[in-house]
């Protein structure tokens, strides 16, 4: 096996999946937000909710499209770059990925068309049902992919046959592996938070430019989400972390930069862990807190990385720091939520420019936290691709470094272009805002067939 092809394949997979995960983590929440907005519009008849729906559905269309095209890549990359993994894992998690396509992808793709272009073609109830089905599809997709990933983190419900191949012995144990419930909750809440942060930032930015009823409502909805979901996320994350002690102790040791196995582990606030010296070059720590946070009592014995052979230890520095970035941002989200609620009770967040600026600054925080959390989960699993079953180094395809360099370069260029363009177009939409007055008259050459074209048809009649 070509060592450079392995490293390049890892880089390419990390790059393409980190790029991809940005979009589902935004669109899962946004689809639900849109379903809520449309439901509120139908229930109350208030035009504000409709205008908010029509505004955010444009941003949804852009983000969802980028999520779809970057997701198609992954279903082929598994075979192209990780063919040995594919052959080993398929008997167990093959059905999970097949079910993701069958239960989620077709549903999302088909009803997205109705959601974006069916505004004048179906009744209000059916349109709302389409939005709700797309939102449901995004959650079902998360269910299957987190299920497959959880199995790779801590595989259960399978046996290894004499010839070395795997067989599922209990599908329930495969689908609902021990880490799955917390990880699904963690991912779903992360998606909702990410969306709330973007909605909050866009609304706050609009309010910094001037009063706007739609943005005031959206900002309040976002604050409600921060205040409810961010603390809930802390609890779910803590539960997921505590589970690691039983199922992935090496990952836990890397997250906390524990080297020695001992009771009364210190909590390292910051540190410079280094695998070369099998220790931390420096650290700022609180004694005993590490054991207390993880196990609930200071005299709990927790494994350190030295309990594992050097070849079985995950990279420590990146896991340790990615975890701290994620948790630090999570705490900031909780703070933003409580601050916002306090301002709402005191007469309105619109009046505090400081809060509005903070909400704008926190707009990308969800994406950063999601990617950091993904790094903790995936890098923390190394050197395994399926913990205890298959090492990443043994999973790679018989491809050459030259091939993978070429495709990696291709991805960097193409993703660079579409990401820049997508961000610019979304920022332009936010700058234009949800108010109807801001929409250009429809004879300025906006083509039919766009989501906008379909939406503009509303109020102009002419449906034949």
């Amino acid at each position: 096996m070509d060592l450079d092809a392995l490293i390049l394949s890892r880089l390419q997979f990390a790059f393409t999946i980190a790029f991809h995960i940005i979009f589902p983590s935004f669109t899962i929440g946004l689809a639900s937000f849109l379903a809520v907005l449309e439901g509120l519009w139908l229930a109350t008849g208030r035009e504000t909710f409709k205008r908010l729906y029509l505004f955010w559905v444009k941003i949804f269309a852009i983000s969802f499209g980028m999520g779809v095209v970057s997701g198609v890549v992954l279903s082929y990359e598994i075979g192209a770059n990780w063919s040995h993994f594919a052959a080993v894992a398929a008997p167990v998690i093959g059905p999970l990925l097949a079910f993701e396509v069958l239960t989620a992808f077709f549903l999302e793709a088909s009803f997205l068309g109705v959601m974006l272009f069916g505004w004048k073609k179906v009744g209000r109830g059916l349109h709302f049902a389409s939005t709700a089905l797309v939102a449901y599809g995004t959650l079902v997709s998360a269910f299957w992919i987190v299920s497959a990933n959880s199995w790779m983190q801590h595989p259960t419900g399978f046996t290894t046959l004499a010839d070395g191949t795997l067989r599922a012995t209990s599908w329930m144990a495969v689908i609902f592996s021990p880490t799955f419930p917390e990880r699904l909750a963690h991912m779903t809440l992360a998606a909702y938070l990410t969306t709330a942060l973007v909605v909050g930032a866009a609304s706050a930015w609009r309010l910094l430019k001037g009063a706007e009823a739609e943005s005031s409502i959206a900002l309040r909805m976002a604050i409600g989400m921060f205040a409810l979901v961010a603390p809930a996320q802390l609890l779910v994350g803590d539960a997921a972390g505590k589970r690691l002690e039983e199922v992935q102790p090496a990952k836990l040791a890397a997250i906390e930069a524990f080297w020695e196995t001992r009771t009364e582990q210190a909590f390292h606030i910051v540190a410079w862990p280094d695998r070369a010296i099998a220790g931390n070059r420096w650290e700022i720590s609180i004694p005993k807190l590490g054991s207390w946070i993880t196990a609930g009592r200071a005299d709990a014995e927790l494994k350190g990385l030295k309990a594992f052979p050097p070849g079985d230890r995950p990279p420590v520095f990146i896991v340790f720091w990615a975890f701290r970035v994620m948790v630090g941002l999570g705490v900031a989200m909780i703070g933003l939520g409580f601050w916002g609620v306090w301002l709402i009770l005191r007469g309105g967040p619109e009046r505090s420019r400081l809060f509005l600026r903070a909400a704008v600054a926190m707009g990308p925080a969800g994406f950063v936290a999601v990617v950091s959390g993904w790094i903790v989960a995936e890098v923390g699993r190394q050197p395994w691709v399926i913990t205890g079953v298959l090492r990443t180094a043994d999973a790679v395809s018989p491809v050459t470094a030259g091939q993978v360099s070429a495709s990696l370069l291709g991805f960097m260029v193409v993703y660079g272009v579409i990401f820049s363009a997508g961000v610019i177009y979304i920022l332009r939409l936010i700058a234009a805002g949800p108010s109807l007055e801001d929409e250009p008259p429809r004879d300025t050459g906006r083509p039919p067939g766009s989501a906008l074209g379909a939406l503009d048809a509303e109020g102009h009649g002419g449906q034949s």
Partner: protein
Amino acid sequence: MSLDLPLIWAGIIAIAVLLYVLLDGFDLGIGILFPFATPRERDVMMESVAPIWDGNETWLVLGGGGMFAAFPFAYAALMPALYGPILMMLLALILRGVAFEFRHHGRTRGKPFWTAAFAGGSIAATLAQGLALGGFIQGVTLKDSVFAGGPLDWLTPYSALVAVGLVAGYALLGATWIVWRTEGELQAKARRWGWIAIGATAVLLAAVSLATLLLHPRVAVRWGFAGGVFDLARLLPLTPIPLAGLAGLLLAAFGLRRNHHVTPFLGAYLVFFSGYIGLAVGFFPNIVPYAMSYRQAANADNALALMLVGVAILLPAILGYTVWVYWLFRGKVGGDAGYH
């Protein structure tokens, strides 16, 4: 009674791939024809597929994901073997996929860029699929079920010929789709494109068929062609396949000549259907020509059984709502119809 699960799954994957080709074929074809249309016509052409392209492309994900889940050993052998064209296809599909939305948001420089990305991406994705298909027909070198060939095995004059042929075929699907779904000047233009595409498809299909018989004896022998002579006993039962392709071309031409709206599209579908069956005759039961049969490649029976239960429930539902969405967006686009 026990079901022959690998055989059933071979059928399911074959149908998924066929549906992908038939459905995404015409929207890729629209991208191939983009350079020949005016800016206003491009908007209408894109409008005719905008609500459905995403569902069409999902069949490609089912093809890939389903292959992983049902025939993992074939998936693990073919993807590295066809690494170049597969990755090229993915990159091209990204560019053309985002263009559906981005074209409407681009302004002075953005819009022409995404128009070019849609056309270029559609053409490149089609060429890549053709190169992958050509590489597949040529056969894949395996050792102990693992790909053991070179990184550019798929790149030959033969696979290039298949790739160009596929561009002509998708252009035919795209042109006949536009004839069906538009009216007026654009429809008249699409008829002219259709005529050119019929001619190109006929010539290239014949060339690919001939090249396959001459260059790939393992396929040729299935058609009763060995040592320069045809064995009529083997060939005759198969003649309905090429005859159906010929009938499809004639039907498309007849439809264009009589100014029919749907007939040309149906003719184009018949051409693709016959080509697909013709291919299958060449390598079935191999799933990795000519080294691995679908049985050798099949996943564990309990995995196939579980998924079959899922497919039995979900596939009818998927087909049902897919048909409903197509029905919802039926009729002509452009002019005063649709979203104006």
